[in-house]
């Protein structure tokens, strides 16, 4: 039956034509097509790789920036801290100096007051002695106005002397 048995002529033509097709298409169709497909894929891959690289670079740049920023922030904090400590130190120093000065002034004042007080007391004592002498003189003068009183005193004095 013709349907189920292969004809020789057709086989010969098929071999010739098909092999010719394979050769011609391989050289003039598949080579350029597959070549440019591959090229395109490679260029796409390259572009993707480059994008990825750029992304990584961006990320590293960003992290660098952050690092720099962090450092700057830390430095700022340090400067502020230093300034603050310096300020408080100055403040404390000023306070202590002021206190010392004040104390000295107070002490000086106290000393002056003391000396003044001593002087005053001495004056007062001298005055009091003077007043006492005057009073005593007046009293004595009054008591010894009569002879009897003079006598009595003399006796008393003599008695005191005797006792000694």
């Amino acid at each position: 039956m013709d349907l189920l048995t292969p004809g020789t002529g057709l086989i010969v033509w098929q071999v010739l034509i098909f092999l010719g097709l394979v050769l011609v298409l391989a050289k003039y169709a598949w080579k350029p097509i597959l070549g440019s497909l591959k090229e395109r894929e490679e260029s796409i891959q390259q572009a993707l790789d480059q994008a990825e690289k750029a992304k990584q670079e961006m990320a590293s740049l960003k992290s660098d920036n952050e690092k720099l920023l962090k450092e700057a922030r830390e430095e700022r904090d340090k400067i502020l801290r230093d300034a603050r400590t310096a300020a408080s130190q100055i403040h404390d120093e000023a306070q202590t100096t002021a206190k010392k000065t004040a104390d000295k002034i107070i002490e000086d004042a106290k000393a002056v007051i003391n000396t003044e007080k001593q002087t005053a007391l001495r004056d007062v004592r001298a005055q009091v002695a003077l007043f006492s002498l005057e009073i005593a003189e007046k009293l004595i003068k009054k008591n010894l106005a009569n002879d009897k009183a003079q006598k009595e005193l003399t006796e008393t004095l003599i008695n005191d002397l005797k006792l000694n």
Partner: protein
Amino acid sequence: MQSEIKTLACFTMKMPFFKTVATLFSLLFGLFVGVSAWAQHAEGNHPQSDTAQTALHTDLTHAEGDAGEGEKFNVNETIIEHVTDAPVWHFADHLVLPLPVIVYSKEKGLDVFSSSHFYDEHHHVVEYNGYKMEGRNILIAATGEKTLNLSITKNVAMLFLTAIVLLWVLLSVAKAYKKNAGKAPSGLQSFMEPVILFVRDEIAKPNIGKHYEKYLPYILTLFFFILFGNLLGLLPGSANLTGNIAVTLTLAVLTFLITNFSGNGNYWTHIFWTPGVPLLLRIIILPVEIIGVFTKPFALTIRLFVAITAGHIVILSLICLGFIFHSYVVGVGASLLVVFINLIELLVAGIQAYVFALFTALYIGMATEEGHH
């Protein structure tokens, strides 16, 4: 990346267009086949008009028509005539293209003449120039000896046509790649590209393995030859090229030769001395493996031949229903069914091309696989 998106957009944009074309195409086909078959049948009922034609016909319908039994319609003959090779290209009854006969014999040397010489005005087969046509063979009339028949038969002409279409399409696509270098594909190129990529990435690469690039031109040519052959074979009036056993056998034998010539030590060891199997079993397995080597191309031959021929036979049978029952109703109903079958045939055309290429890739992959035991 942008170009890729563009490609995708291009392709999705064009998809509905191709779908519509495919649908329209099948509808037209159904109509055309129906009409031409009807015309042919009608012709069979009027044998008188035959004398006026220069057209040639071997159809039994006509032979019977000549005998005055016009009502009898031989479905079997009609269908077989449609799916087998012929020395003439019969488009319709008044449109028959005689093809050149090329014969070679030791006695008479090389002879080239038109196949129309083998028919008289009543379409009876006659002797010519000392040659006698007997079925597909051409014998020397005097001795009855066979000659080497290299005639451009209907299928050979179809083969030329398929090759020309294939060359035209693929070379223009290749040109587009050169022209559009570094740019997004356009037109036909963007339609073919996914198919080429499919063959490369889904058929060749996973099945052959790392040496796939060496076999890619063969597999791509095979795939597109079968695909174009199948699709062109669905055209009304065209020949059943990829459903011809000589064609499928040739393709299968080429695959067989490539497979076995690229077979490495590992492949042959597996066939002749299957490792990891007890000695006794190896002896039993040996013939099985050797038979297996030959069943592969056999399966390839039969699968494509049967799938395509069966499809054609189903369509033709459905069309013949109208003539068997002599009813327009049956004819219209059958034609609707034919349209549906045709859509399936479009699917089969792609699937069979895919399957043939896939199995070829698979066999080559098995033959070139590196041992991993």
